[in-house]
């Protein structure tokens, strides 16, 4: 049994997990829908897409411009071709500065490059400060969602984890658990010699590094410690500050169902200011991005602003959660992106089959990416045995559990009907859309 298949089976057998993931996805989607309807969604996302398209089309000149502005303000820019190189750069910065303990804010790119493990190996103590990340760090787990890393855990399981690891009386009250984490981490912030964070956008004209967050840990990490290291992908650069407006409006609504995120921090190096770090580093990560930009089939994937909306609406993600994908990036965006990054293409060739091609991801995507189209193209590129194996795994396991179907709501019920026409173990034709399958099923 392949690893992905085993993961999926385990996820489907875990009823509590299924319920936690589904509830969370439904809540997020509901809030998102309410606030998106305030915008002229189609025209705002068209504007956002244009801005992001320029990030790719003019990537080199924009990065050069950014470098100039950022360095003029006193920042130090680094470029990492691979994940290993990126980790080495961060480790070197911290060792050279003698900064051995610090705080880390949530960032998918640091997960992608395995920075946590690299710091640990180098004897550098970096505590995760985002509440969700802190929870999974205590549990020794990986995030299961790109914006809500501990989404797979119930409050009871978090309560038990805190009681066990922090040696405190059990509580499963989210308010109390948050306060406990706040006080533990507050001490770490005061003592921190460095802060590490991701970045949502880089502004070429001014050199601002934009960090969007709700908890306030991002701005603490960027203003309290003497060393600050931001790590982000080369595709995050945009032209000017004004380009941020539609992106921020869409990101807040799509990611957390808010009109505005609690903190949008536009950070500039300012070495002689008391609440800015002495050293402000930015590590630009390639790790397959430059290669992807040159690939007409998949360059589009780099428009992604990591909002997580496509995960929340995906019937497969809703059923199995993030860990089943076995990749840092789960859900529809992860099934594509995981195959583009890293040392070579198609490292996760089974993932494109974990989709019903229902198109919900494309409908919600704030930059209007054709995720189903890319999933199909990846299926075509997948090594042949993967198709048979995972078609069965993906469809058979993920879709053929009536109880789970019921939970996953209307979309999945429809899929369930489609699957009814597909005995377990049968293979899926790569070029067939969900709607096609659905029709075929009702014809019978």
């Amino acid at each position, binding site marked *: 049994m392949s690893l992905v298949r085993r993961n999926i089976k385990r996820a489907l057998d875990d009823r509590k997990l299924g319920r936690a993931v589904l509830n969370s996805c439904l809540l997020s989607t509901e809030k998102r829908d309410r606030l998106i309807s305030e915008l002229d969604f189609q025209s705002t996302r068209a504007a956002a897409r244009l801005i992001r398209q320029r990030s790719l089309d003019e990537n080199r000149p924009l990065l050069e411009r950014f470098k100039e502005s950022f360095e003029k303000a006193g920042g130090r820019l680094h470029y990492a071709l691979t994940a290993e190189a990126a980790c080495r750069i961060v480790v070197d910065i911290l060792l050279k500065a003698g900064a051995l303990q610090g705080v880390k804010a949530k960032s998918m790119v640091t997960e992608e490059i395995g920075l946590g493990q690299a710091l640990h190996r180098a004897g550098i103590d970096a505590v995760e400060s985002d509440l969700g990340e802190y929870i999974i760090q205590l549990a020794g787990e990986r995030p299961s969602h790109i914006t809500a890393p501990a989404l797979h855990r119930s409050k009871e399981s978090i309560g038990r984890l805190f009681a066990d690891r922090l040696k405190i009386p059990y509580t499963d009250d989210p308010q109390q658990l948050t306060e406990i984490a706040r006080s533990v981490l*507050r001490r770490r912030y005061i003592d921190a010699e460095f802060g590490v964070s991701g970045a949502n956008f880089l502004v070429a004209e001014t050199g601002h590094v934009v960090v969007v967050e709700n*908890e306030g840990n991002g701005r603490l990490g960027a203003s309290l410690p003497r060393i600050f290291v931001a790590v982000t992908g080369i595709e995050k650069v945009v032209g000017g500050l004004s380009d941020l407006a539609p992106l921020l409006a869409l990101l807040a609504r799509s990611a957390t169902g808010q009109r505005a995120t609690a903190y949008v921090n536009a950070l500039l190096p300012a070495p002689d200011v008391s609440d800015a770090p002495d050293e402000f580093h930015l590590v630009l990560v390639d790790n397959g991005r430059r290669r992807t930009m040159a690939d007409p089939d998949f360059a589009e994937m780099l428009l992604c602003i990591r909002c997580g909306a496509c995960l929340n609406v995906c019937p497969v993600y809703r059923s199995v959660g993030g860990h089943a994908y076995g990749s840092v990036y789960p859900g529809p965006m992860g099934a594509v992106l995981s195959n583009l990054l890293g040392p070579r293409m198609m490292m996760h060739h089974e993932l494109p089959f974990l989709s019903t091609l229902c198109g919900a991801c494309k409908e919600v995507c704030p930059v209007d990416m054709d995720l189903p189209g890319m999933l199909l193209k990846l299926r075509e590129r997948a090594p042949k045995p993967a198709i048979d194996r995972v078609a069965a795994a993906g469809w058979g396991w993920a879709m053929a559990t009536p109880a789970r179907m019921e939970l996953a709501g209307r979309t999945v019920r429809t899929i369930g009907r489609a699957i009814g026409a597909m005995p377990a173990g049968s293979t899926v034709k790569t070029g067939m859309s969900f709607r096609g399958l659905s029709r075929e099923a009702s014809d019978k």
Partner: protein
Amino acid sequence: MTGLFRQRWLESAGEYVEAAPEGDVGRELLAFLQAEGIKSVVIGGSPLMPIVGERLAGEVEILADFGRAGYERETAKLLCSRAEAGISGVDALISETGALVVSSTGRAGFMISSLPPLHLVVAHEAPVFRSQEDFLAVAPTDLSFSFITGPSRTADIEKRLVLGAHGPKRVVVWGPEI
């Protein structure tokens, strides 16, 4: 526009107090601090702050007044984390999103708005912009700044909203009369 700001700000769990016109915002702040039983504050640097500082002097403990003196990072962060409240000005208000614009100008603007559990914002004379877009078109190109929309928050445990994650639990704005 101020009305919309207030509405949106309240929707984001922020608090709003109408500053009396021609009033003395220092006196209003002092009354608020006394009512809340707050004894120690840090004060940020903005043109209005010296007046506020004078009002509060002798009444509450002013751990640091960043408008009057510069502090080393280590001192600044210890003082800000000991204070029960941080008082600061604001560079602008944004009505559509209900956001404050706070810049880091070397006067601990980021620490004051991050470390104490309560952040009091003197905003009755701040310029009001309609949208983020309008502000970004004229935003400072050589400063760090944040949009702040309500108190810090998290929904990482079962999507339940909890206020007061790493930043303040309450943010109270003294804004113009509406």
